[in-house]
């Protein structure tokens, strides 16, 4: 956890309660999860009740209350990907990694999430590993794609 970076974000928005979601988003992007002590700090610095921080953290799918793996896999299950076979892509990823959407493996290598449409339906079915998009992927190509990550 990079405390300096988190401090910087908090100081930037000190006392601005309406920036709560933005602050949480920036910290999530920086740290990949929201530890309880960080959420306490957010509550203090932005002067919002801790209960509201927690409520927003559990409401939105982007926020994670547990540490994520080194690589985040996002499988698109939007409608266009769905009718082009996203379900079997998801099942293959689950078989290969041993984790379900929302989970992280024991070695903290991969976290898996489903997403609803990334706005590039021509790429479907698709999955993203971190920033890399694997377009028009078929189930038998997934093992190779995931091998590259450690």
């Amino acid at each position, binding site marked *: 956890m990079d405390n300096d970076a988190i401090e910087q974000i908090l100081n930037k928005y000190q006392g601005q*309660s*309406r*920036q*709560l*979601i*933005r602050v*949480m*988003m920036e910290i*999530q992007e920086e740290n990949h999860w929201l530890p309880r002590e960080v959420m306490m700090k957010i509550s203090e610095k932005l002067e*919002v009740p801790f209960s*509201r921080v927690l*409520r*927003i953290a559990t*409401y*939105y*799918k*982007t*926020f994670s209350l547990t540490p994520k793996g080194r690589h985040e896999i996002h499988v698109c299950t*939007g*409608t*266009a990907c*769905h*009718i*082009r076979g996203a379900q079997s892509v998801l099942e293959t990823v689950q078989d290969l990694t041993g984790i379900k959407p929302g989970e992280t493996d024991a070695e903290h290598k991969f976290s898996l999430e489903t*997403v*609803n*449409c*990334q*706005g*590039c*339906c*021509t*790429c*479907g079915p*698709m999955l993203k590993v971190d920033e890399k*998009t694997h*377009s028009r992927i078929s189930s038998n190509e997934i093992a190779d794609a995931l091998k590259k990550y450690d």
Partner: protein
Amino acid sequence: MTRINSAAELEELRQGILSKKDPDKPSIAICAGLSCLGLGNGAVINAFKEEIRKQSLEAKVDVIATGCHGFCEKGPIVVINPEEICYLQVTPEDVPEIVSQTVIGKKVIDRLIYTDPKSGEKAALMSEIPFYKKQMRVLMGNNAKINPKSIDDYLAIGGYSALAKALNEMSPVQVLEEVTKANLRGRGGGGFPAGRKWETTRNAPNETKYVIVNAHEGEPGAFMDRALFQGNPHSVLEGLIIGAYAIGSQQGFIYTRHDTPELRKNVDIALAQAEEYGLLGENILGSGFSFKVEVHFDVGIFVSGESSALMRSIEGKAPEPKPKYIRTSVHGIWDRPSNLNNVETWANVPQIIGKGSEWYNSIGTEKSKGTKLISLSGHVCNSTVVEVPMGTSLKEIVYDFGGGIPNGKKLKAIHFGGPMGGTIPESLIDNPLDFDVLSKLGASMGAGDMLMMDEGTCLVEVARFFLDFLSGESCGKCVPCREGIRQMLNILTNMTKGKGKAGDIELMEELAEVIGAAALCSLGRSVQNPLLSMLKYFRDEFEAHIEKRCPAHSCKALIALEGV
């Protein structure tokens, strides 16, 4: 950058930009839209930069990463200007050849240009490719011409002249009247007249009013707003400033997705540049009108695109909707009058002010005016973004722009408007693209996303899929939506597993009626729309599932039962 203090100074600046531009200077416009990036355009952009550097052509050739060109299926797309030679499915390996042959040698590389799949005819220029030729690209047409990160590029194509006209030559009421006369209807889904919405907020009794760009675009299969906003952010911003002037608002908000980095970057840059030029801030163009804009983000839940939920989110609270009888136009953000329109609606405003309502009224049908952006996805040869005049037949959209249905299959149905939209059967394909016609058919246009489904698609499964999606996205505040979705989902899941029973359809219809009448917000009141439209046109398919048959041979459990 220096601050511009009047319309005359804006014109002077524009002339200055134009005089420095050499129209014959080659430029390489590489699409950096979401699909092209997904298909590997990042590597193509780097390869071009590297090649230009290697050949020491930096001063002679521009390399621009542009917004979406629309023909996503054939991405990555590269356009060589000024000739507008359009290369499709470009790989990094093609790059040295393109630079030496086309950029320098002015020769067309045959293998990279468009070939018609039926006639085999070739087209080298963007304007000759039938996909582009048949469209009316009023909003999207500039995407391939400008660098979305450069306000000067936008000024060079006449940008912000509509704002100057509005502030200089028109009163706020005149601007409002012009938009009302243009019959501009909201592009986000409802098709509500924008002029009337603006008027409500303008007349609401509060000095502080807000205007908002809804760039949430949460419907799966809708990607036209991102294409437009990312590719030409100033066109949306200009519309927003004009709208704020008409409504009497000093503060605007942009509500967009956090998960599209390129879009975020372009919007941030656009706001900073507009501020530096004084097109945002105090006393814009010396008119006395002041206006600021702040960006807020959706962080991953569908319901936050609903107007009242979106406004709660801007306040920094959890995005739970308010009851719909409280109108956000009057009681919105912090209980103040707030006017919300989506990206495409705002982008139409500078067009209307610049060219006049008469021009706008000359496009489209009797009650649906202007052009509409459509995103095509699903079982269609070309998953793309197209812009066509309202009134274009659905058949033309599916076959001329979408290229028809792949793998030799037949079209079964078209679904509009995502998980709260509606489905129509192939037999109604001769109908025009029109808010009211589609509504009557039971499929509202939504944001303009069309999902094609071929004969192998089981609609019971698709209805189940939408409800499954919505069950995860409902905020859970009101019982009809939270429990109603869950019960309908249970019934449909049972049907796809061969556990459907007599009376299921009637029970779902009863549930749908209650949710439609009793749910709190427009999300809850629309969740039953896909199911009801499918029951209207494909009831026999639902009945077949109760008899343990899947006519599309798609539900695995039923295929297994049939085999016995």
